[in-house]
């Protein structure tokens, strides 16, 4: 069975500062994908960033980047220059194995960006 753990239920950051959200996972597969999704109050899940496990280079998308530590099974999300619109629930997710469409989600981290 695969698991995803987000140990920070809530975090806050001041606008324009940098924040890092933690995620650890467990899977016996070698080929898998990791994701960070954002869920604002509108409930619409939005993909923030994706990492293929076979790629050593950390993924980046504008202000969002990840620190992927495969041996440690760690996948943290760094948000730079935080904006008020970044306030949302953030979910880490794992897709692995032959049924890698079946994503396993963590419980989420509620991020609040303060003005």
């Amino acid at each position, binding site marked *: 069975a695969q698991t995803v753990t987000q140990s920070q239920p809530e975090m806050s950051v001041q606008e324009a500062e940098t924040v890092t959200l933690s995620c650890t996972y467990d899977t016996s597969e070698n080929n898998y994908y990791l994701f960070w999704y954002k869920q604002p109050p509108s409930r619409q899940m939005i*993909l923030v960033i994706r990492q293929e496990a076979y790629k050593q280079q950390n993924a980046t998308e504008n202000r969002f980047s990840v620190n992927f530590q495969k041996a440690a099974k760690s996948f943290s999300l760094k948000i730079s220059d935080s904006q008020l619109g970044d306030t949302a629930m953030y979910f880490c997710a794992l897709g692995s194995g032959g049924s*890698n*469409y*079946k994503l396993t*989600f963590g*419980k989420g981290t509620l991020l609040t960006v303060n003005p």
Partner: protein
Amino acid sequence: GAGVSQSPSNKVTEKGKDVELRCDPISGHTALYWYRQRLGQGLEFLIYFQGNSAPDKSGLPSDRFSAERTGESVSTLTIQRTQQEDSAVYLCASSATGTAYYEQYFGPGTRLTVT
């Protein structure tokens, strides 16, 4: 273009009644997923459709839950004899095809409340 749409947005029903939730995926997406999100929790996989293949129903919590999809279009999730523990947000997603490589696009969800 149009995203994934779900209806109704909110549904309140009495314990023991049947409910039907609808999902319209993005046109051309062959893969469709249903997830359940209980309050304060991550998403739980329920069921997956890929084209004309047999669906993966491994996440359905009981035989009161069923889902159908007509070809590569609309899907309905039916919950019979609803129970209070069925109260949750039900999210639908679609993707170009059914591997984790392809981004899952989510709808806004249906919030189900069983009284």
